[in-house]
């Protein structure tokens, strides 16, 4: 089963840390990526700050073009920072591997993928 691991946290925190601190967090990611790489294809991305985002909201009237507005979809305390997608045996295993990224400063959401295209199309 394919699962996504979605990472949420406070934006801007890591920019306030020393290089050594950031290196410790990066190491968690590099280790997980090494592990996932051994098992097959995976994808991961770190997102730019939400200030770089635009959101497309449905147009008011039927058939109207979507409205492009500046900023993220929702104003929330915890921001969507990045994600992984990979194949896991079951939920337990996905949670086990996701937990390796856990720090007191992020919340990780593990959510199965119903359908995937591109890299994640099932053969």
């Amino acid at each position: 089963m394919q699962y996504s691991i979605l990472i949420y946290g406070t934006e801007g925190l890591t920019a306030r840390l020393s290089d050594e601190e950031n290196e410790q967090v990066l190491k968690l990611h590099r280790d997980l990526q090494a592990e996932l790489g051994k098992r097959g294809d995976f994808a991961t991305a770190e997102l730019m700050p939400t200030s770089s985002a635009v959101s497309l909201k449905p147009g008011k009237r039927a058939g109207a073009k979507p409205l492009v507005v500046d900023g993220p979809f929702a104003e929330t305390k915890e921001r969507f920072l990045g994600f992984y997608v990979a194949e896991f045996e079951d939920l337990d295993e996905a949670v086990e591997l996701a937990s390796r990224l856990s720090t007191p400063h992020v919340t990780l959401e593990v959510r199965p993928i119903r359908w995937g295209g591109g890299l994640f199309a099932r053969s």
Partner: protein
Amino acid sequence: MAERQWLEAHFAEVRPRALALLTRHFNDLDLAEDAFSQACVNALRAWPRTGIPDNPLAWLLTVARNAARDMLRRRASAQRTSANLAVIQASHGEDEEPEAIDQAGLRDDVLRLLFICCHPDLSAQDQSALALRVVAGLSVAQIAGGFVVKPRAMEQRLTRAKRLIAARSVPFEPPSLDERHRRLNTVMLMIYLMFNEGWSAISAEESDRQPLCQEAIRLARLLMDLFPSLPELMGLLALFLFQYARRAARFDAGRLLRLDEQPRDRWDHEMIAEAATLLEKALRHSMPGSYQIQAAIASVHARAATSEDTDWDELLRLYEALLAIEPTAIVRLNHAAVVAHLHGPAAGLGLVEPLAGELGDYRWYHTMRGGLLCELGRWRNAREAYRLALTLTPTAAERLAINEKIAACESNLAKLSD
């Protein structure tokens, strides 16, 4: 202590919003600062045991409000004034639910706090220093370091500045649209000058971390978070990021490098990508302004893989656009540099020399004039220009570069007299 660093990062992140709300609540900036510090001390004790609360801002606010009331009570019992007690009572009992923080009101409160720091009687430097102290929460020593002044002198300036703003009354009501824009423009200018101050003060040793530039970037990010659809604000942040992306490439063995001399592989290309995105977003609004044009100018340089690839025609168009809305001497000087590149040093010099009156105290005027004179082979005049630049307090890295130029002029003069 790793954990402490993380916790302090949390405090710093919520500080502007917390101080804005506390200032609204108690109408006393000093009290707000003291109460917030107290709340952080409590959090340092509590959070390692309980974990970081779901809403750190709400947690810190609740604790800070209680701390502020205690402080007021102590003050009141010392002074026995009923006015203070009235404030305590008025602020009591409205322990609003943490989730009830009104986002729309909050953004104007944060803007108001920044705007208070921009008191018109304060110099641009003191406005920045105050915002760094109050809003960003930097220590006096850090701020003094950023401005390259002695901590004691900075302490005195901050004390004076705080007295001045304590007497200023800026209403708490949500501002009108016009007033909000006026405040935003004032605050953006303050942040712009803060960045520039930091940028020119950066020395080779600390090129990696310049508190003024970093905080200016953070303040611009904070404003963008609160006001997500202002093209000039996007332009401002883009401009900072384009420029700050070059921080690691500006120096070589302590000497300041010109843009065309910098090793471009040392530019921060992740940061440049973010800047380009912001500029793209801004331009979608089709409401050009000074910061957007300046960011577009920076993007022309950032896009060029090598100095030779720079699109000088595009630069000239952009500088002409900038001149049309902001015909200041500095913009004219930069415009002249592009003209010199495209049409030769004589054409550039023709535009530079009329600026002597306005820019006589500006060292970059003299170094640029010196450069053009060198290109024209007028070594004696060039040397004179560089010597003038030396008298206008260049940084150590600039001094090195200028002295090299003077030496080059002299060796050329010696060759001529042989």
